């Protein structure tokens, strides 16, 4: 708290302490996992591995369960994201631009899912799916993951549509452009990047969704995170999990790059109620 009045000339000791502690606690564990992924032999108590190499990459990628899980995860994420975009984007446009009875209350009703502890709600949904025989099926997992994307895919695009300059649209209408033409040439290009970020984040979020997939999908549906759970619980070869972690982190990294614009400017934190 000594930095309340910033003094430029002094060394930023507090910053150095924070940077060091956070590097240790947050980057440290990830570096250890990364090291394990490129390790062939690492016996306790050596500080660095005895032998580095790519042997376990070949072995991990050669496993049928890894490929099945990867294909399944990509299928699920694609289906969920497409469905979510198809049903949510028109709804977002309606919320942003049209007036209809109950508009506000319906808009805020999407918050309902966040008023409950998440896993409790998943269990309540699973109890219904049990009666509908959706447990252990592809579409059961699609439905539960779709619900997880709803609020995200409506609220961010609504903000995007609202940010579009109405005067440009009206000007286009004045010179005779059809409503569809206006939407295609004026509205979409302006709202597009933010919507694309929302779509990407929902794809990545679905890819990593673990709890719904495990609760609803097991044992038939084994996504990458579910496979990873079983590797953590009962796989003796540490490197399989490490290689999978590094592989799994790639989509997250892409999301990190793209999400910077959504997260920047505090808009993201406000969306969470900050």
């Amino acid at each position: 708290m000594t930095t309340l009045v910033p003094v430029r000339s002094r060394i930023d000791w507090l910053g150095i302490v924070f940077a060091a502690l956070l590097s240790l606690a947050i980057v440290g564990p990830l570096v250890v996992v990364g090291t394990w992924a490129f390790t062939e032999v690492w016996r306790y108590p050596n500080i660095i591995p005895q032998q580095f190499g790519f042997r376990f990459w070949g072995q991990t990628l050669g496993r049928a369960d890894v490929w099945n899980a990867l294909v399944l995860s990509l299928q699920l994420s694609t289906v969920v994201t497409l469905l979510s975009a198809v049903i949510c984007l028109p709804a977002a446009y309606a919320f942003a631009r049209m007036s209809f009875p109950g508009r506000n209350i319906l808009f805020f009703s999407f918050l309902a899912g966040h008023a409950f502890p998440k896993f409790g709600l998943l269990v309540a949904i699973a109890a219904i799916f049990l009666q509908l025989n959706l447990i252990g099926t592809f579409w059961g997992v699609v439905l539960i993951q779709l619900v997880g994307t709803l609020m995200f895919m409506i609220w961010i695009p609504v903000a995007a549509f609202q940010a579009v300059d109405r005067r440009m649209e009206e000007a286009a209408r004045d010179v005779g452009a059809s409503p569809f033409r206006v939407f295609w040439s004026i509205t979409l290009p302006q709202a597009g990047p933010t919507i694309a970020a929302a779509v990407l984040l929902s794809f990545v979020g679905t890819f990593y969704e673990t709890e719904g997939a495990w609760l609803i999908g097991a044992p038939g549906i084994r996504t990458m995170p579910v496979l990873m759970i079983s590797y953590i619980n009962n796989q003796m070869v540490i490197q399989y999990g490490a290689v999978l972690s590094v592989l799994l982190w790639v989509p997250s990294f892409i999301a990190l790059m793209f999400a910077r614009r959504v997260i920047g400017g505090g808009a993201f934190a406000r969306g969470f109620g900050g």
Partner: protein
Amino acid sequence: MSEVAKAAARPLMENAQSRRPLGLLLVAIPVFLMIWLVVWPAINAISRTIWRPDVDGNVGFDLSSYAFFFSDRYSLDNLAITLWTTLVCAILLLVICLPIALYLRFSRSRLSGYVQALAILPMFVPSIILAFAFIRVLGPNGMVDILFNAVGLPKIRTPYLTPWGPVIGLVWDNIPLTVLILLSGLGSVANQSIEAARDVGANALRVFRHIILPRISNSILVALSFSVLGIFSSFTLPYLLGPASPEMLGPFMQRTLREVQDPIGAMTQAVIAFGFCIVFGLFYVRSVARNQGK
């Protein structure tokens, strides 16, 4: 000019009228999904655990599943460990994130960008990878053991599979959003008011207590509500890092539903979780709605 404006305005108005049903139609599917898969399951869980058929098949008011939960030693232990974990995580999150947020808000050094990037990084690390990393670092013969051994210290008592395992993992996981929410709250604290207070001789602690704290108390509550909602019924980290017994409510519900195959028991546990979180849930929703309304 005004005629053109009128001519343009009129069809727009008429359109707005004629689009009324269209707007409802466009939002119908997501709203239906939300009611079917959020509102209905919650109502269904409550009603099916309260009105249950008796031995003759007559459905009547029956709280026996709740009576069982609150008289069963194992269930109560699980509830206690859940409450303990949530409380400890909330305190730790505040103790860790408030100084970071204060530093980020008021520092102008170049390091603050790096600190912020690190504080937000866990958001992009899936909890499943976090669990794996945790075991490799703090687990038996993990990195900490290796480093301690190298400098001649004894092995640590590993937090893996103890109640501290989920605590460490959940705090790690929740740092980014807590910092972001606190930081966004700190944005409303004006530099002038702090400078004014310092000019009249207030020290850092008094500035914090009397100027900063009152302005960000709402953000603190929002951040705490958000993390409590997430932590209370968390599943992945307690399941992978926590002890098998007592277990937190998340793994307990999952086991009751899928392994014991007792949906009524699982729904009872879910409703109890709803009950404990309802204050935080409503507060959180109210804050988000108010923020959006602005």
